[in-house]
């Protein structure tokens, strides 16, 4: 009997607990609807944004690596630490933040620091802070900003009428590239040197030790918000009402939201659900068939297709050192065999304009470099018959299981009749939009008689495969964010032989992972590297157009990669249920990015609570 009575008690207990939790639930549900309880964050003062932080936050240390630092510290986020300039990807203009762009030429990039810029501890933001960050790489190899010292030989400072004028001198011997200096000025966040010099001194001048600090308790920042709370559930930042820029940039206005909360979701669907339920105000995640979510208040930049502004170009990089992929004709046949329209419609819900041959988009800021006649003459568009014709001309034969080309493809032979290996497209397993693109590409390639298969691998194998060149074809999105150096940056990422090393051993390449255009090869085309070197130093529009035209022509003829579609830099989605005043194509006062990225930070000063 004892046993039964104990069990009875337990059951009653369980039922009670169930009741308690349901009862509590009802109360809270009402509480939430009426705008949060007193201990919490009132809806009319709190902006909910998501999509930049996926796991629990590692660190808020501004000199940690970008991939380590949590939102809103990593990347070009301007809420806590600020960059010198921001870049408006709509009009290509630089907007002032800590500094203003004065001039740029092939010798130097000149900016004036804003004399009103102030750290949260009352110290001014000065050239010492800027020099500290940019020259960290000179003091410590492996510092997060070490890449900057290859481009900047020196930062000269002069004071004109109480304003500090900084000249970033172009390093003529190493890279000679003022374009990338502009990239850095809108991407590298400035940190308080008085704080970090002291930390370095306290830690025996050991950068690694300082990088390990989380800097999440009352950090000294220059931006409009500061960290309030963080957990594996969300990150909360609070407005700094004494932010220097309110006066100096925004005419005395405060940013509207007092708090910004970034919830951390583990599942892509939750962004869509939260946006539709009004629990999230903006997000930057891929949501298929967004037009169905319009009725629940989810809006995008354009009201209709393609909904987003294109900025990035996911593509298949080709290992050009391996037969038959070392044959440009084979690569061109591949480009003709893939149905880009299917990829656009089926893999990315039509969120992009039609892809054009070449590495330049036919619209946006780079649209002026696109030449439609060249694309027609030198490029290949989707044309299965042409794919077969190119292959036949080059001597490739497809062998089918039952002889006729409607049966299963068995293998392919080259000119000499040798059997060619099965080619595999490496793609990280579980990245569903990429996997869909690869699926469609494989379908087209096989239909044209090329023996290609999908090769989904774990992300832990994908990342090492990319720089080592250990792939046949691989999915990649080079130059993923829109920076001042586009489309040069994209060409450089795909075609540059600057660091060319063969596949094998510990050899790694961080651009041109397909090993295109080997300088040791007799077929080496020096024109490519010449153009890549020249373009950043060109300042006349017609010279740039001519240079890009030539480079794109070579790309189309050699086809070292297969661009599959255009995608936005960010999937900018918002809901006007709690906050209104978001920029759209009808009111394009800021680029379509979440309000903490670059020039879009000003959205915060333009939002108004609905209630």
């Amino acid at each position: 009997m004892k046993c039964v009575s104990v069990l009875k008690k337990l059951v009653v207990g369980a039922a009670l607990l169930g009741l308690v939790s349901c009862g509590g639930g009802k109360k809270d549900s009402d509480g939430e609807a009426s705008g949060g309880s007193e201990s919490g964050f009132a809806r009319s003062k709190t902006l909910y944004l998501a999509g930049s932080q996926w796991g629990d936050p590692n660190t808020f240390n501004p000199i940690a690596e970008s991939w380590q630092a949590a939102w809103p510290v990593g990347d070009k986020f301007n809420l806590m630490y600020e960059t010198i300039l921001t870049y408006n990807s709509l009009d290509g203009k630089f907007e002032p933040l800590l500094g203003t762009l004065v001039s740029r030429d092939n010798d130097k990039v000149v900016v004036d620091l804003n004399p009103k810029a102030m750290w949260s501890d009352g110290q001014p933001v000065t050239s010492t802070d800027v020099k500290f960050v940019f020259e960290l790489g000179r003091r410590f190899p492996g510092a997060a900003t070490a890449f900057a010292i290859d481009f900047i030989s020196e930062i000269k400072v002069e004071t004109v009428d109480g304003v500090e004028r900084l000249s970033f001198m172009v390093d003529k011997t190493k890279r000679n590239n003022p374009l990338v200096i502009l990239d850095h000025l809108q991407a590298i966040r400035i940190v308080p040197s008085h704080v970090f010099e002291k930390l370095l001194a306290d830690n025996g001048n050991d950068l690694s030790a300082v990088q390990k600090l989380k800097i999440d308790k009352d950090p000294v920042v220059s931006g409009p918000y500061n960290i309030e709370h963080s957990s594996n559930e969300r990150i909360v930042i609070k407005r700094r009402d004494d932010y220097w820029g309110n006066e100096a940039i925004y005419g005395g206005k405060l940013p509207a939201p007092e708090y910004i909360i970034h919830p951390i979701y583990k599942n892509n669907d939750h962004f869509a659900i939260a946006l539709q339920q009004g629990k999230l105000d903006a997000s930057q995640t891929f949501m298929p068939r967004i037009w169905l979510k319009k009725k629940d208040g989810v809006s995008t930049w354009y009201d209709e297709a393609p909904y987003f502004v294109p900025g990035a170009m996911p593509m298949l990089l080709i290992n050009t050192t391996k037969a038959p992929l070392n044959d440009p004709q084979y690569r061109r046949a591949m480009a003709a065999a893939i149905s880009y329209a299917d990829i656009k419609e089926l893999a990315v819900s039509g969120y992009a304009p039609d892809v054009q041959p070449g590495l330049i988009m036919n619209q946006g800021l780079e649209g002026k470099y696109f030449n439609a006649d060249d694309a027609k003459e030198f490029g290949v568009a989707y044309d299965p018959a042409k794919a077969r014709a190119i292959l036949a001309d080059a001597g490739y034969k497809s062998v089918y299981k039952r002889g006729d080309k409607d049966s299963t493809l068995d293998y392919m032979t080259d000119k000499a009749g040798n059997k060619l290996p099965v080619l595999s497209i490496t793609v990280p397993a579980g990245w569903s939009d990429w996997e869909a693109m690869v699926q469609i590409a494989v379908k087209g390639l096989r239909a044209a008689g090329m023996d290609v298969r999908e090769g989904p691998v774990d992300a832990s194998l994908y990342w090492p495969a990319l720089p080592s060149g250990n792939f046949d074809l691989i999915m990649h999105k080079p130059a993923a964010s829109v920076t001042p150096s586009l489309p040069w940056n994209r060409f450089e990422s795909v075609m540059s032989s600057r660091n060319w090393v063969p596949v094998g051993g510990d050899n790694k390449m961080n651009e041109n992972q397909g090993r295109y255009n080997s300088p040791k090869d007799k077929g080496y085309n020096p024109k490519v590297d010449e153009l890549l070197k020249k373009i950043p130093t060109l300042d006349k529009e017609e010279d740039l157009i001519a240079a890009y035209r030539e480079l794109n022509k070579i790309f189309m003829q050699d086809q070292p990669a297969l661009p599959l579609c255009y995608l936005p830099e960010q999937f900018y989605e918002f809901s006007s249920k709690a906050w209104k005043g978001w920029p759209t194509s009808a009111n394009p006062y800021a680029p379509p990015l979440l309000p903490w990225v670059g020039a879009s930070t000003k959205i915060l000063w333009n939002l108004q609570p609905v209630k």
Partner: protein
Amino acid sequence: MLKQYPTLRFVLMRAGWYFLTFLVAVTINFFLPRLGKNNPVDIIMGKAATGLSNEDARKKEEKYLQEFGLAKVGKDGQLLRDAEGKPMKAGRLEQFGNYIKMCLMGDLGTSFQKYPKKVVDVIKEAVPWTIALQLPTILFGWIVGNILGALAAYRRGVFDKVFFPFALILSSFPFFVFGMLLVYYFAVLLPWFPAMGGYANSVMPSFSMAFFSSAAYHYVLPFFSIFLILAGGQAIGMRSMGIYELGTDYIKYAKWLGLKEGKILTYLFRNAMLPQITGLALSLGTMIGGALITEMIFSYPGLGMAMLTAIQNNDYPMIQGCTLIVTVSVLIANFTVDILIGFLDPRVKAGLQMGKGV
């Protein structure tokens, strides 16, 4: 030795075996993640090296190798290099020695992927949620399932005819399908419950009524997504065990003696429960590993997701830390059951008293 204390001897013997198992498990935990060819620094470099020159990328890679303890470091704090100038990788045995030393000092190391976060901190943040979600669900699911199963076995008739197929359907539902259906119906179509998170974003975690009621509200769907399926499975197991026991002589005898139904049910329950207890112990032991599917469907905090990302990124210290606590908790749970069964199962008890040992 200890012949006159068979129970103590039994406990000590078991403890000895468990300690050995623990050592083997710890060793496997160390070597298993390192079997693959890819190393964690390569994975990080894939993301961190974009746009770097080969020279800068090499410097960065060496810095990571040194910080993560994957390369040999000389007395002066500089990397030791081979003839070609490449850093010498730290040997497995050396790393193993470090790992054991750190384990003994209660330090599970620093995560690579969540650098510079300590593994212990990640676990500390996640485990309370995991236990809060899993412990009650497993216990209640087990208790309710077993009671219903025993009832169904004993009563048969209409109750069983309705209950059994229902339980069968429930228990054969995959967790993720059931969870997603719950989200769709009760969070999207009828927005009665929140679809995700451990508590509302508008409250701060604190010892306040607002926080606890919000946490309880967010608890409902994840709880039922596991509870119902678990209870269904337990009920089916218990029902068949019960039916088997019903046919045994002692139950028939008890019925013929005219004992009360409650008394017979107690007998039935005690005997049918033995395998169920083992099952309970196993699931309590593995629960620390987190309910990955539930965490993903409800964006619920917990250890499952931390473990998944650690495995995907070859984050050795994090994998080791997670598998270590899973190992320890499984062993503790099993040990407890072993001892419990020794007392509960008259056959084991009889065997012990006869001095045969186990």
